[in-house]
């Protein structure tokens, strides 16, 4: 079974190499004339926003509309990006703060929706909607937001590593990783046996297969750290951010049990 990148996010690989903050600095410096950078930021953050809204008990359609309106009204028109400051913390926290402010005013200002013609809304592909795990039924909207951000991050890592393997003729490496590691984790199933995999893909011994998997695992880890690093300012903060994400997980995982 192939991994399907159903989020339709990510764009070109080259774009990923640019850090979030340098993207934001570029936008602030006015070098985003055609809106491409903004578009990339929107693609990265719409899912967390949407999930947050769903948890705030907005209906599916309303959450979709609000997501679009928010990006259009606040992020684009009110130059939210221009006001972000990398010294003041995570961009996603800043975005969430702005979203809350937007919701407070929006609730009061029900007519605003009519003021923006649909065709002028920020272009977002909200065809395929992200799911939250069932255990999140009772979770706070903030946790959902974090969850969606984390999932987006991991999907990007997976997509990047997969592309990297394909580009370097390591399709078998990827297949081993996917079937032995990725799928079992995601579907909570038992991994295929190495011997079986070797037979299927024509690999002579299991030791070699095992090394192939380790190679992809390392790349997965490197890519994860690289993408985390891209959202923070310095190397030291990347480790802090990783620890933060780990802390977020067990705490919530326990609560779900």
């Amino acid at each position, binding site marked *: *079974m192939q*991994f*399907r990148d*159903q*989020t339709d996010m990510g764009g070109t690989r080259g774009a990923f190499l640019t850090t979030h903050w340098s993207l934001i600095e570029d936008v602030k410096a006015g070098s985003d004339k055609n809106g491409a950078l903004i578009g990339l930021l929107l693609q990265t953050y719409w*899912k967390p926003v949407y999930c947050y809204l769903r948890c705030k008990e907005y209906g599916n359609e309303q959450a979709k509309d609000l997501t679009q309106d928010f990006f259009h009204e606040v992020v684009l028109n009110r*130059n939210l990006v*221009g*006001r972000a*400051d990398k010294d*003041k913390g995570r961009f996603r926290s800043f975005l969430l703060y702005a979203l809350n*402010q*937007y919701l*407070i*005013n929006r609730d*009061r*200002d029900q*007519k605003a929706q009519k003021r923006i013609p649909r065709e002028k809304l920020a272009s977002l592909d909200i065809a395929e909607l*992200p*799911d*939250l*795990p*069932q*255990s999140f039924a009772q979770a706070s909207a903030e946790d959902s937001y974090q*969850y*969606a951000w*984390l*999932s987006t991050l*991991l*999907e990007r890592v*997976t997509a990047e590593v997969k592309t990297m393997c394909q580009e370097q003729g390591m399709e078998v490496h990827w297949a081993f990783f996917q079937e032995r*590691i*990725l*799928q079992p*984790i*995601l*579907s*909570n199933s038992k991994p295929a046996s190495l011997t079986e995999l070797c037979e299927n893909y024509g690999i002579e011994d299991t030791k070699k297969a095992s090394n192939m998997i*380790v190679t*992809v*695992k*390392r*790349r*997965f*880890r*490197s890519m*994860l750290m690289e993408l985390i690093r891209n959202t923070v300012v*310095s190397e*030291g903060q990347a*480790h802090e951010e*990783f620890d933060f*994400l*780990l802390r977020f*997980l*067990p705490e*919530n*995982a326990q609560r*779900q049990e």
Partner: protein
Amino acid sequence: MMQSDSIFGAELDRIKRLLTVGEEEHDKNHEEHTPRTASLNILMERPGGQIGRYKLLSVLGEGGMGIVYLAEQEEPIKRRVALKVIKPGMDSKRVIARFEAERQALALLDHANIAHVYDAGTTETGRPYFVMEYVKGLPITEYCDHHKLPIEDRLNLFRQVCLAVQHAHQKGIIHRDIKSSNILVSMENDQAIPKIIDFGVAKALAQLLTERTLLTEESQLLGTPEYMSPEQADTASEDIDTRSDIYSLGVLLYVLLTGVLPFDSETLREGGIDNIRKVIRETDPKTPSTRITKLGEEARKVAESRRTEVATLARKLHRELEWIPLKAMRKERSERYRSASELADDIENYLKGAPLIAGPPGTVYRLKKFARRNRALITGAAAIVVVLAAGVVISTLFALRARRQAQISESVSSFLCNDLLASVSPDRRKGQDVTIRSFLDTASESLNGRFVNEPLVEAYIRDTLGWTYWLLGEPKEAEPHLERALQLRNEHLGAEHLDTLDSMGHLASLRCGQGRNTEAAELLEKAMSTCRRVLGEEHVRMLDFANTLGYVYCDLARYDDAEGLYLKNIQIARRVLGEKNNLSLFMVGNLGNVYFNQGRYDEAERKYLEMLRLREGVWDDEKVWTLRYKGFLARLYREQKRYEQAERLYLEILPIQRRMDGDENFYTLWTVSGLAQVYTNLGKYDEAEKLFNEALKGLQKALGLEHRDTVRCMNGLSELYMAQLKFDEAEKILTEALEISSHILGEDHPWTLTSMNNLATVCKEQERYEEAEELLHKVFEDRRLKLGDTHPHTIESMNSLINLYETWNKPEKAEQWRAKLRD
């Protein structure tokens, strides 16, 4: 719906597993490149070993902070470097992060007397290291002694060090650990070249200084206590500025001149950290000349290594060379040299025989020192007031003597000595703390019934006490004294006596400060009328009153009256006192304020600039008045939407105000609030919010809730909230501001109208159109009446109405107002 091949929807435990995929392998992978054991790592950090890309050759030195190696770099260029490994126990990540933060600035350092810091990193054992230019030389004091350099040669070397430090300060870098061993002298082309090492290193390690060093044991003290400035010892790093380096340079100069440290190391350290702090903060070092004469046998050696005799050296130091290190080492930063280049200049002055900037410690310095020693008792602003109050009392006495009112003078002296000073003597106070406030309170209590037969003495004392209370920020206590003093003088000297006029001036200032401007105006008008009759139109007192009255008129929004008053009196002041006299300057600047309030922005700018040009040579850049009028100019730029210019100007004056006047000073807060407004306009909301909070909190504390400047700050904050779309907060603060403002300034005062206008905007944004309409109409009408049809604020009101009607979907009404605007 959960899809098994999508990450979205996966439970948290699985996300966690995914997040840790490859963690182990990745780490192992890294270890494969460096499969060393801990003991091997330690071995690698020895000569013959390797740290990063640097091969360690030999140990250059070992100090409290760590070991310095001579090392060799192979790539990208082959060179010898000094590599300093910090001893274990530090938070390497933070040290390196701090270094990285300053790396760009360090790269800008390009000076022949500063050694480059090339690189920083962590060793395999996790210890931070710094890689620096290798300087082959001796610490400056050792070099000087070794070569028996005479004083003048030492001063020349020291001057070069000052200029190098100045270079770094101009790039925004503070050394923080200037000491002899960090200044190495090497020979280049037969010339001695001092080089400062370790720039950027101390700052990177500063965390340690605050969190560990001073809190744990003395042996780990980092910043070399002998060279440490009081503020370093006190707050340990958070409030360190360039003047901290000036202090350390002062210590270095002290050692270069005398061969000994200002505070003997053994004595300094014997009482532990607390003693170190206390000595550095409170004890003045012995003057170098005294120190030399008390060194005994060692003094001879010291003199010899300077190629001179002990007596000659002591004489040379006593007048006046020793003033230089003592000024650099002043406890109060503001009393030190303002820059390293000023220190260098004074060295040059000495060498040329020109007068020094430094002088011997005077009375004021001693008084301030008293206040500092008693800081636990007299804190913050009060410490300054002690000096101020002492000044007031002393100057009153002098004034009395000058007038030959010997009898009154004697009574006042007796009152001060017998009643007041006795009250603070240790046996009477039984160990209680004495503050200036309690001093004044005692004086106030003792006064009652004390001078029944000497009303003029009572008047003098009350006038002094009242004025001092007022300076202390205690208007309530000041009021009865100043009122009584005026009453007594009126009764016994008559309304036309100069002292009575002075009392009126004092009381008017108090009223003005209390926001009771109508009463202030009445007093001043009366004083001026008397003054005109008795002293004539051109008397300096008359001009003084006119200046204050113009200011009061402006506050009362009586702009035409203020303008007329200033235009007339500027002419007189220039003729009588000259255009560079303080009063002439004030009035030009204050006329600028009047124009500003009238919305005549171009004329206001011309006046401000004219005043700032004229003050050159009279008020320097740090003079409180210069700062204040620059603040007014910045406010004008803001109003004209010239935000970048406004920001630049505010940022120019704010650090000076913080340093000179303190963070809680009213004018500093005024600047803080002004800058916050500019940030709001520039969309820098976080900065704006931070500053507004500081300003509002400070103003409320300093002036109370019910004060016009607090209201102004609240108006500014409401604009930020509106920009942030926080309409609830905006409404709350505006309602409060409106209430206070209507009460203390009146319903039609321009600032009240600003609150109302902003409130209307909030209503509009919340689609409460009727309310917005009502408010905007009132604001418009009042502004028209108060400010005139063409005032920018009146025009703003019309635009707000047009905008309201458009949003409300009432195009006809919008058009009506548009037509009105065109007219």
